[in-house]
């Protein structure tokens, strides 16, 4: 097995260092619509429906839904140690930032290339939010 390593710059929103397997969603995510006791996405018709986002490095375009439900959703996952390890997004809004701060999940945006081209589900990804660096290891 050959490993290819790519190092990319990003913009820190919530600090922290985390490493894990990437899970990519091209659709916005509402954490309220995941099972707080398993981390499985239960939103019908969602691209990640049935997939487990716990302890993954989650790559998605943005958050969605009202502030109350979004924050409570991610917070409940954190309480059960099932939150994503880190989050890489394209667009941020205030609610997602607050959710990540409360859940203490590293959050970055503005990857120097399109995150959906650079990262694929299953890649190993290390996020060092403080340094503004994302390292992607592809398993070829």
């Amino acid at each position, binding site marked *: 097995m050959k490993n290819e390593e790519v190092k990319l710059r990003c*913009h*820190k*929103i*919530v600090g922290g260092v985390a490493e894990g397997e990437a899970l990519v969603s091209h659709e916005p995510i509402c954490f309220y619509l995941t099972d707080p006791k398993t981390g499985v996405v239960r939103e019908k018709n969602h691209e990640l429906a049935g997939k487990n986002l716990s302890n993954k490095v989650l790559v998605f375009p943005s958050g*969605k839904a*009202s*502030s*109350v439900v*979004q*924050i*409570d959703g*991610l*917070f*409940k996952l954190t*309480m059960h140690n099932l939150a994503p390890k880190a989050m890489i997004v394209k667009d*941020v*809004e*205030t*609610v997602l*930032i*607050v*959710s990540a*701060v*409360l859940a203490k999940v590293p959050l970055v*945006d503005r990857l120097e290339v399109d995150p959906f081209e650079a990262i694929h589900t299953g890649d190993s990804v290390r996020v060092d939010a403080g340094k503004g660096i994302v390292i992607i290891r592809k398993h070829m």
Partner: protein
Amino acid sequence: MNLTREEERILAGELGEGTKVAMELLVAIGDAFDAEKMIPISRAHAASSGQEGDMYFVELLAKGGAKCRVPTSTNPVYDIEVFHKLFKIPKDEAAVARRVMEAYKKVGAILSWSCLPYLTENIPLYGETVAFSESSATPYVNSVIGATTNREAAQSALAAGVIGKTPLYGLHIRENRKGTVQIKVEATLKDSFGYTLLGQFVGERVGYGIPVLTGIKKRPSTEELINFCAMSNTSGAISMFHIPGVTIEATTVREAFQGDIPKESITVTNADLQRTCEKLQSARGGKIDFVMLGCPHYTLKQIGQAAELLEGKKIHKGVAFWICTSATTRKLAERMGYVETVEKAGGSIVVDTCIDEPCWTVYRDQVGMTDSPKCAYYRRFKDVIVAGLEECVQAAVKGEYS
């Protein structure tokens, strides 16, 4: 972000752990949006919810000795004393609600427990810089009043209230307040339910943006504007809109777009609103178990309308009839005799709460009716019929909707 010496000291925890946590959150938001600095706010509204995430943050601030520096009102939770007499509420849920309410009191928030603070308990003026969370509050304050706020979360609004500042970004900057899409209203808006449907439609179609509504013939009422705000910011993320000649920042379409030519326009017809209404229904008709009104909270005028419709009538046996409102509004409704009329008919007017609270779990497997798509969206019940107030009252009296 450039912080002043005082802001640096707060961030370093020199003024206590509570204000430090609040400042950390504001700095994270400011950094994310490349805000240049913090700006003072004059008031805030925290969309408290009585849920665990809410409890975690407000208790963190309360334990850390934080106090609100500017008037900061609160959203509905629920009055445990009232609901314990009515339903069985799970012990742990009730404990969360109680702790949340105590913590907000400890940080010195205005205990309004109302989702329309901008009408009574905490009213911004034109041009004020504020931090208002809550779906109807954010767009109402920006558009109707002309104060500036971003689409805050409960926690960022509370943090802003504690520090008395918010990062300078988003809707606090004039250029970001210009229209992004024109909505040509061809539909007839007969009553406040028409604005409810219009809000639902615009939120769904625009998603995120600043709609500019044209073609509205009759000046909308306060309640109609509230409904439009609540629904468009639930089905979508509409933090601001313009109705040239009605809302405060634009008298013409050109002004609403700040001189730009609208890139996109969407037409709304009666058929669109009809379809929007049909999509909201999860039940067609038949027997109903309850009617739920007041999402967002009913104003005094709406309670008066409900009372007038119920005058001399009896709500059908087995049908529960609820109106949610604020404590201040209920007090006036008592004086006006509205509460007595509604109660005589078999209904209840409850304060401090909202349909999204755990106290309503008793209706989980029942069929209900409401005039609010937002209530239906957050529903904790089996099926919902969404219709105007008059139809809701008629169905409550008959015991069924047909």
